[in-house]
Structures are given as structure tokens and as C-alpha cells.
């Protein structure tokens, strides 16, 4: 079986706080707990960016955590989905235009799902992450299509035979 078949059944989540107030972070923790139980979608919180599929970001991006956020995003393998959690991750919220805040995650990395609210309720977070699942599936399909195009056999009739051309150039000497 291929890895991509399982990706939809068990996406792994990476959580990063880019300068938020901890409010959304404890709601993410509450999602992992028995009442909301995000693990029924096969999701698990992992600390390693190289193994994860969904990046959950909270907080307005502060100037110091900006580099870490981009670094973590670039370390994640394709396909990957970014979910903004809380209004300050979406647009800056109450922290917008404060001197050390950049205001919004989407200025630095591409964002797929916006979950608003201050703080975002666990139901909203689950809704957003399930939405991210369908995007993840779409991205997986798009990647597979490009791989299929590459693997198609070369049709002899339409392609230039480079070896013959090269031989014809070399022959006169």
C-alpha cells in the first residue's frame, strides 16, 4: 500500500505558537482530551515537523518567532496544509499594529484554512482541521497526477532521436 492512501486516515498535526496568548493553545489541548477527542480522525500531535502533514499556527507572528515559523514550514514534507487558529493568527486581531507584531500568518507562509474566534472554540478547531483534511486529499491527488505524467513512456514517433542526430553531426568528420 502507498503512503498517500493512509495520509487521509491519519494526518499528523504540528502545533506552533507564534506569539499568541495561550488561549487557543489550551483549546487545542482540550481537543486532544476525551471530550472533543480529535484522535477519532486519526490525528495525533507530533513535535517533529518532518513527520507532520497539518501545521496548526496560533498567535500574531512576532518578529522573533517569524523565522522559526518559516523554518518549520519549510521543513515539512509535501503535501502540507496550514491552519490558522484564532483571529490573531488570521489577521493580527487585537495585536494588529503593535510594534513587535507582524499581524497574520498569511504574510509569510501560504494559509489554507482560517479558523476565527477569540479564543477559537474546540468545535471550530475540529471543523477547521476536518476542512484541512479535504484540502490535504486534493493536494495529494494533484501531486500524484504530476508523478503520473512524468512516468509515461516516451513515444518514439513524436520524439526526436537524439542519438541519431548526434551521430549525424559526428559522421562527416
Amino acid at each position, binding site marked *: 500500500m502507498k503512503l498517500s492512501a493512509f495520509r487521509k486516515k491519519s494526518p499528523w498535526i504540528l502545533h*506552533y*505558537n*507564534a*506569539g*499568541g*496568548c*495561550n*488561549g*487557543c*493553545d*489550551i*483549546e487545542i*489541548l*482540550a481537543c*486532544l*482530551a*476525551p*471530550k472533543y477527542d480529535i484522535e477519532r480522525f486519526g490525528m495525533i*500531535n*507530533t*513535535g*517533529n*515537523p518532518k513527520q507532520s502533514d497539518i501545521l496548526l499556527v496560533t*498567535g*500574531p507572528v*512576532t518578529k*522573533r*518567532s517569524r523565522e*522559526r515559523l518559516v523554518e*518549520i514550514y519549510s521543513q515539512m514534507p509535501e503535501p502540507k496544509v496550514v491552519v490558522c487558529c484564532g483571529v490573531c493568527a488570521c489577521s493580527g*486581531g*487585537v*495585536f494588529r*499594529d*503593535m*510594534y*513587535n*507584531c507582524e499581524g497574520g500568518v498569511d504574510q509569510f507562509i501560504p494559509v489554507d484554512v482560517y479558523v476565527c474566534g*477569540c*479564543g477559537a*472554540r*474546540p468545535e471550530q478547531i475540529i471543523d477547521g482541521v476536518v476542512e484541512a483534511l479535504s484540502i490535504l486529499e486534493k493536494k495529494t491527488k494533484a501531486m500524484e497526477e504530476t508523478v503520473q505524467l512524468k512516468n509515461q513512456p516516451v513515444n518514439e514517433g513524436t520524439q526526436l532521436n537524439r542519438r541519431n542526430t548526434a551521430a549525424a553531426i559526428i559522421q562527416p568528420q
Partner: protein
Amino acid sequence: MGKQYEIPLGAQHISLLEPLHFKFTTENERIVDTQANLFYVHRGIEAACCSKFKFRQVSFVVGRVCGLCSISHSTAYSQVAEKLVKIEIPRRAKYLRMLVIEMDRIHSHLLCLSHVAENSGYEALFMKTMQYREFVMELLEAVCGNRIQYDFSIVGGVTRDLKPMVAEIILKRLKIFLPQLDELMDIYKNNWTLSLKNKNAGAITRADAMRLNVVGPFARAAGLAVDVRNETEDLLPWKEVGFEMITETGGDAYARNILRLRELYISKRIIENIIHGLPESPLVTETKAFPDGEAVARIEAPRGELFYYAKGNKTQVLERLKIKAPTFSNVAAMVEALNGNEYGSAPAIIASFDPCLSCTAR
């Protein structure tokens, strides 16, 4: 002497809720030196409160300093602003503030305990504690209208009244919570697996705690009787509602767990007393005065003493607002307490300090 290795922990790590960075120098897996690097989440709230927002709006902004103890921040600011505009708030508002602060303390302490259990590698206990914590989030939603970020205290009083039906639900749910708390107490006290990671881990002596100005549960677990609720009577009448000082000896992660659980019994008692003896009065004192002069206010947040200083100049915008968060006082002792422990137990020790970096860095 063995070879020394430097091991970083953070800024992004599975065991950390928020970005902080520790650099451990280890020798044979034992930490000999620690460097803490905390200020990743500095947002500039103090500057914005003195320039962008009017003084009545600031109580909503400082609530966003920290999601865990937002009620402590907004209450402390409200008290400071009330001193500046020179008003006395109604008695019912004081009691309602204390009610929400204590409910917030229950949720914060249980979150910290579950986090210690998770970082000690005891996933089942994490799940159990989080499950038992959920009732207080529902109650907070019933009282304030939101699970976190309550926006309950404003300058002059509180925003919402406690409905009799909600008060009844709180009493009923606290009755269900009591046997669950006993069960948690039994597990955290007697479980052998948990004691391997928590007993004698991250210990600090009473003398060191006093020298390094430790506050909150961290200090009380080391035997130091430090609690703002015990010291101030003028703003919130804590002793009227049955506050009692609790201290533990030992100062290690185990003592901090037990201390937090014992404080929950006191919180439960305070909530019940408040609901039974809630005085009748209006909720808000209206005033049109502008802030003038200087004032300070102290309040016991779940992590320790929270200190607010404000200065007004008879305009809508404050001249200066200074916040000193409890974790800021504890950083020096945190670094000291980590030295000498095994590297493997470092995440559990850090969780047992219950650090709140968004308070510290603001």
C-alpha cells in the same frame, strides 16, 4: 569529569505549549548548566496600552496578555484603574470577581497537572485530568459567556450577573467534582510510575526560594508562605470567603503537584461560600472621571503574584502601564532548580514550574 554536551530544548518542542528555549550543558546525561531564553512572544502590549487604547478599553486588551489567567490580568488592571479614577466598586462585583478567579484557578491548576503527567510519559493520566477539567470550562462559559478570554472585569465592576440557575449548576457540578479530585489526589500521591519522574526532580530549598524571590505554587511547595490573598484585604475580601494558606515541604515536582491539588479543595470551598453568601447590589459603579496620579495593585494569579502599576495624566490614554507577571519572578529559580537533574526529566520539571511565557514577555 566526563565530556560535556550542549543540548537545546525549544523554541518549538513537543512538550512545550509556547515558544521558549533552554540550552542545557549536560555531563553524563546530568544537567550542569542551564541558559533560558524566553522572550519569543514579546508583542508590545504595554506600549500599545499607553498609546493606542483608551483606559476603559485596556481591560479587554490586557486580558489578551495571557489566555490561562486572563481574569487575573483584567481584574488587576481594573483595580488599578479604579484607584486612579477613585471609585469603590459594589460588593457583589467583588464577590463575582473572586468567583471567576477561583474557577480560573481550578482550570489552570488542572491543566498544569495534566501537562506534568503528559511530560512524565503518563498519557492516560493526562487524558483523565483533562476529562475532569472540562466541567469547569463549561461552568466558566455559563458564567462569563466564553470558555477562555472572559472579558468579565471592567473598570468599575463586572459585565455579567450570576443567574440563580447557573449558581445551582455550579454547586451541583462541584459536588460531582469532589470524588474526582479525591481520585486524582490518590493517583498523584501514590502512583509509583509517576513518582519516578517527579520525586526529587527539580527540587529547590526553602532558603534558595527565599533568596531568589520565588512566588506562587513554586514558593509554597518549597515551604515559603507567600500568597497575595493572605496579605491584601482592601480590594478583594479573601478571608471572608474562607481562604486558607497551604504550604508543602520538599520543593520538588511531586510537592508542587500535591500543593496544586490541595489548593483546589480550598478553591472549591471559596466558590461554594461565595455562592451561598452572594450580597445584593448593583454590578457597576458609573463614573466620568479621568485617571489621575499613580497606583499599584497586586493579585494572586494561578501562578503567583501579579503586579500592576499605572500612571494617568487626566486624559483618556494612560501615561504608563507596567505589568510584572509571576513567571518573570520565577525564571531565576527555574534555571537553578533544573541544574543537577537528569536531562530526561527536564520536560516534566519545566511543566511542573507551570511557566507562562506570554505573561512574561507580553
